[in-house]
């Protein structure tokens, strides 16, 4: 029993620490794709960080049907901190669905990000340079006014729940 536990512990430690060492030793490249949802034929921006300046990444779009090369991007920067921001146009004949954007070097460094493709839009073909939405921490403005009947019904439910709860808690033993 003890031997099994020790073996299991060793496997878990190896699984955890091996990639951690890799991460700490070399830094793992990271990419983000904007927007995360784009129409086929539209343009995406791939932002790469945690890269060594000068590294060349081949950018591909991967889906169930296979891999589509989008182009290359070279990391720039000073010292050990490097990255890139590059725009790529998605071919308009790619089927809508879930894809992965992969950035890979010849040395085997890989970073990926999700991308969802929708049907090509007339807008996308007319204006290839898509505007990336500005991120916002504000709440979505929605009309959340409730009908008076609903408010009254909820108020009754609150009163009934609280009253029933009170009765049950103070029920004679």
């Amino acid at each position, binding site marked *: 029993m003890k031997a099994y536990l020790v073996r299991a512990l060793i496997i878990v430690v190896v699984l955890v620490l091996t990639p951690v060492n890799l991460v700490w030793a070399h830094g793992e490249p990271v990419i983000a794709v*904007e927007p995360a949802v784009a129409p086929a034929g539209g343009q995406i921006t791939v932002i790469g960080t945690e890269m060594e300046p000068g590294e060349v990444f081949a950018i591909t779009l991967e889906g169930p049907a296979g891999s589509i090369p989008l182009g290359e991007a070279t990391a720039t920067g000073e010292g050990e901190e490097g990255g890139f921001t590059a725009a790529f146009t998605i071919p308009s004949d790619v089927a809508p669905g879930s894809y992965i954007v992969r950035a890979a070097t010849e040395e085997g460094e890989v970073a990926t990000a*999700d991308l969802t493709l929708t049907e090509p839009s007339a807008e996308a073909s007319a204006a290839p340079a898509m505007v990336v939405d500005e991120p*916002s921490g504000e709440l979505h403005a929605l009309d959340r006014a409730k009908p008076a009947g609903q408010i009254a019904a909820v108020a009754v439910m609150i009163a009934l729940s609280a009253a029933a709860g009170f009765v049950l808690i103070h029920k004679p033993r």
Partner: protein
Amino acid sequence: MASTVQPAPRSRLGQWLNERLGLQGLAYAVPEHANSLPYLLGGITFMGFIVLFVTGIYLAQFYHPHPADAHESVVYIITGAPLGDLVRSIHFWTAQIVTLTVLLHMLRVLFTGSYKRPREINWYVGLGLLAVTLGLVFTGSVLKFDQESVEALQHNKEAANVIGALGGWFSAEFSRTVPLLTRLFNGHTTILPMLFGLLILVHIYLIKQHGISPKATPDTVSRSMAGEGESRFSVHLWRMLGYGLFVLALALLLSLLFPAPLGQPGVAGAEVTKPWWMFVWLFPAEAAWGAQALVIVPAILAVLLALVPTLDRSPYMSPARRRVLLIGAGLILVVIVISGIVATLQPVAAHLD
């Protein structure tokens, strides 16, 4: 046959059901102190989970778990689905309350020494339930796919990178056919609820097996209380249900006054929001040590909690006889609370690499 812990039902329906389903066999002995609020926190949490399951099933009829449609479907739930905004808000507020009660339940068990022999295994099952609860909160917070969700997901991916192969499930590469958001929805609605169901069954079985822990008076020693208890099981259940109804009333009131928030559609690569209160305390650690803090700090806490029954082996349950452990736990709690307050007050800062 009448049970010693629960007399036979008096009503005809009760007798009919008991004869066919043997419900009386599920009853266990209940000491009087177990009917007080601190000892009912676990039961209150369970009642909250029932509300979450019911409202969650309703929301799943309208939610679309795909990055292209998720946020829009939440907007539809709020503005178009019948009672959608109300049900979503009840789900949101009940989740907040349940997270609080599950943490308070754990602190009560820690304070009263209810994890001691023979209840160590149930302490570990409880830690599993805590992890599942936090997992449900996290996956649930990501599903709305607004700016806060997208940022949470990015932090999660970075944390997953730190744990290497074990974090592989959180990478986009894990499945080429199903996006991560859809898999998180599966986790939220199938994997985690199944784990919860399994763990809660074991949790309740072990409570029945060992009885509810004795009251932590100065000389009480931990022991099995199976079959001991002056109160009735039905009284315990009614109180649990009573407090559960209070939770429902509170969730309804909060839903009416403060509907569940929804941010703008998420944009990847930005950091302009903060996570919910149950995760925000990790922010200062992340600012200081990077993404690995998101894994290492919770892992250290989990190990410390797992070690509690090993570190505190004395049979005494009274807090006064366990000062060292409780002071240590109290200090950690204070650090977490201060860290949470600092993170809440400080401006949003970028942590992602």
